[in-house]
């Protein structure tokens, strides 16, 4: 039994997060600069190379959702005039800010010295930082990543990004931190990033086995946490992923499944691919609906919002700025619909899935627009029926347990009935 090892990576992550937030809280007195940035296209190695500490507002928002605080925060944001249809992450963050800015670890989140916006397909991010710039009266820098509308980027797109990095982003960081750009420091960070990325990909791809030793959605949102947030390019990050990989490989060798809210899921009746973010306010409840039916998620697209490493990308220390540009343009949010369809189809085939599910998020048009077309197209290309449920990121009002449970149960029973050809 791998309980001890499993605890080790979870414990590590907990400690990493706690010490990061503690350091953030002391940042003003320690004169450590703080840079806010978003998960998709985050330039955390670059930020760290300037000795600055990253804050990722949507991670705070999803944590508020998991801690059942987002409902109150959203209400607070709506009181000051944000509409019901605005992205729930934004409202949770604004509400948190207006309620004393106490973050998920119970510590105060410091004000930003710089808002670094990598624009990777989500227009709302831009508006979000516009609001924060207003609230904090702080500098902001905009890094425009061209959208992959045609599924590929041309060399001039890359050149355009490099120019922005050199002429805008780096000078803004230099000004905010009072330190000069240090390419060697960046290279070191990128080397550490690539090492952690290798481990993560091994973990993700372990789900190709039967039984899968991981849950590629519910479990994996925890696994991608450090790499998608503050810990890419850090020694702690590498240590975490090395530990995690060992644990997963141990489960794999022992033929064990992932640990779910219902215990270890070894008897895996259904293998699924999932598109869309989870509902954070009802995360465990949602997961339990899968685990209760013996369903394991083998791959998901949401766990690629902070990088599509399993398709080969690694941060490359030999081309420090170029690799940052490549990383940003390849994030899942920056991909067009055909690329997203290709990705789902590829997952279904490579991970031998029995079905796929779309969790469509009410307040995230960036993810949800076009999902029904994705559903139809993936069904057509794989011959596998898709399921479609709707909920929200962190707005607890939009999670209807009875409806979603009903839908999922029906879906699993349908897969089962089709398997046995009507003799269910």
């Amino acid at each position: 039994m791998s309980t001890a090892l499993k605890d080790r990576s979870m414990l590590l992550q907990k400690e990493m997060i706690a010490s990061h937030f503690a350091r953030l809280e002391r940042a003003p007195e320690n004169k450590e600069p703080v840079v806010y940035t978003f998960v998709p296209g985050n330039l955390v190695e670059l930020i760290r190379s300037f000795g600055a500490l990253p804050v990722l507002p949507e991670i705070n928002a999803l944590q508020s959702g998991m801690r059942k605080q987002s409902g109150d925060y959203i209400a607070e944001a709506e009181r000051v005039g944000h509409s019901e249809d605005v992205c729930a992450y934004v409202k949770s963050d604004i509400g948190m800010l207006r309620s004393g800015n106490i973050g998920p670890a119970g510590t105060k989140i410091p004000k930003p010295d710089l808002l670094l916006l990598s624009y990777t397909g989500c227009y709302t991010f831009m508006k979000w930082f516009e609001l924060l710039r207003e609230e904090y009266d702080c500098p902001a820098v905009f890094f425009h990543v061209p959208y992959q509308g045609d599924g590929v980027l041309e060399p001039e797109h890359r050149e355009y990004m490099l120019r922005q990095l050199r002429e805008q982003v780096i000078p803004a960081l230099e000004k905010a931190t009072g330190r000069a750009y240090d390419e060697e420091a960046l290279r070191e960070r990128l080397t550490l990033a690539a090492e952690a990325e290798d481990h993560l990909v091994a973990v993700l791809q372990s789900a190709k086995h039967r039984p899968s030793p991981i849950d590629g959605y519910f479990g994996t949102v925890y696994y991608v946490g450090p790499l998608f947030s503050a810990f890419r390019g850090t020694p702690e990050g590498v240590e975490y992923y090395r530990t995690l990989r060992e644990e997963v490989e141990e489960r794999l060798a022992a033929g064990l499944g992932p640990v779910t809210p219902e215990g270890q899921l070894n008897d895996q009746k259904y293998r699924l691919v999932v598109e869309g973010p989870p509902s954070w306010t009802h995360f465990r409840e949602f997961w339990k609906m899968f685990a209760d039916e013996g369903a394991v998620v083998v791959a998901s697209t949401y766990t690629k919002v902070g990088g599509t490493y399993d398709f080969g990308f690694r941060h490359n220390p030999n081309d420090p700025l170029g690799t940052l540009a490549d990383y940003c343009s390849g994030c899942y949010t920056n991909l067009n619909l055909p690329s997203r369809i290709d990705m789902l189809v590829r997952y279904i085939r490579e991970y031998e899935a029995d079905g796929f599910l779309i969790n469509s998020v009410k307040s995230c048009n960036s993810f949800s627009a076009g999902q029904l077309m994705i559903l139809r197209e993936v069904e057509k290309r794989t011959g596998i029926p898709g399921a479609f449920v709707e909920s929200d990121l962190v707005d607890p009002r939009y999670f209807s347990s009875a409806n979603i449970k009903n839908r999922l149960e029906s879906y699993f029973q349908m897969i089962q009935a089709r398997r046995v050809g009507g003799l269910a």
Partner: protein
Amino acid sequence: MSCVVGIDLGSTTTKAVVLDEDGQVLGRGITNSRSNYDLAAAVARTEGFINARFGLIQQRLEQTGGAEGVGRLRRAFVMEQLLHQLRRLEQLMLEEVERSAPAHVKQPFCGALREICRRITEEEEQRFRQPPILRSDFFRDAAGSAFMRIAEEVADPLGGVSFDRLVGVYDKCIIRVENEPLDLDFRDHIGDALKRLDNPPGLTDAVDYAASRDLTPATTVGTGYGRARLPFPKEQIRSEILCHGLGAHAMFPETRTVLDIGGQDTKAIQVDENGIVTSFQMNDRCAAGCGRYLGYIADEMNLGLHELGPLAEQSRRTVKINSTCTVFAGAELRERLSLGEKREDILAGLHRAIVIRAMSLLARSGGVSDQFTFTGGVAKNPAAVRAIRELVQENYGDRQLNISPDSIYTGALGAALFARRMVA
């Protein structure tokens, strides 16, 4: 004889279907779900078995020639049940007055209630002697409308017995009558029913035969929203999606697309040649455009649910309605009325609006294939059926539209067929 039972615990009504060992429908039962699924399931089941016994009476009489008396016996039986419930209602109302009314009004109050009940009884007996007309099968609907009408006549506000008082005590007690497991079993009322027909010898023999048959269900399968309440092991619970698919297939074997509009959800289902579901879509997050919407409209207009469709059918000019939000239904309606629109035209528009919502679910699930079967409570509504016909024709061309007069039992039938497969 061995039989199986399917129970569909819907949000509005609970249905039961009893199948004999050849898979033929022996009996069906329906009751309103109230807020008490256990009781609803018990009542629907009892009624299913009562109907099964009537089925046996019919079979017996057909063997011995001439089954004409069964319809009348059935009506007599239903009336006996109703009068039994009315007596119970009267008793509860008198007790309530005794307990809570001011001393000086007790006597006239009780007198008025007795008079109302006496007149309802008289009306029912009168009704029995006349040709049958369509009305709701539920005690609440049948007794309720008569109670209100007569209460208005007998109310004597100056004597301390206002209409409001009468309705108040009725409202309080009708809930109790509905939520008490009343003795409505076959044996309890069939004797009285026969007596009303002067105990015709052929019928009496058939009744004896039917009453003596042992109808012990080999197994029961439950479905519908309340299915989790059923004290069955997991294998005996099926999703209503699968049950509706299989039930519709049993009714119309060439069915490939099924639309079910129920109380609080709408389901678009595609099935294969064996009745196995291949794809489905349901409304999410919001029950707009479901049967319940029509329920609210009926309440707002002071009409019975079954009166809406026929009224809408009189429309000559459909009003365009955009909102199908159930919460706003009343406002939408009043707004239109205030603009001078006719009730029937507004209603026609409302029916079309909910069907448009259903069309979008059908499109999501894969369109409308031949043959197309419409089920659920709303399939009883002629205006909804007309709107479906028109919209399917506009969007998909010629499709055979199947609607069974027993369409409300589709889910329960599917559940019973699953039960039969478990026994086989």
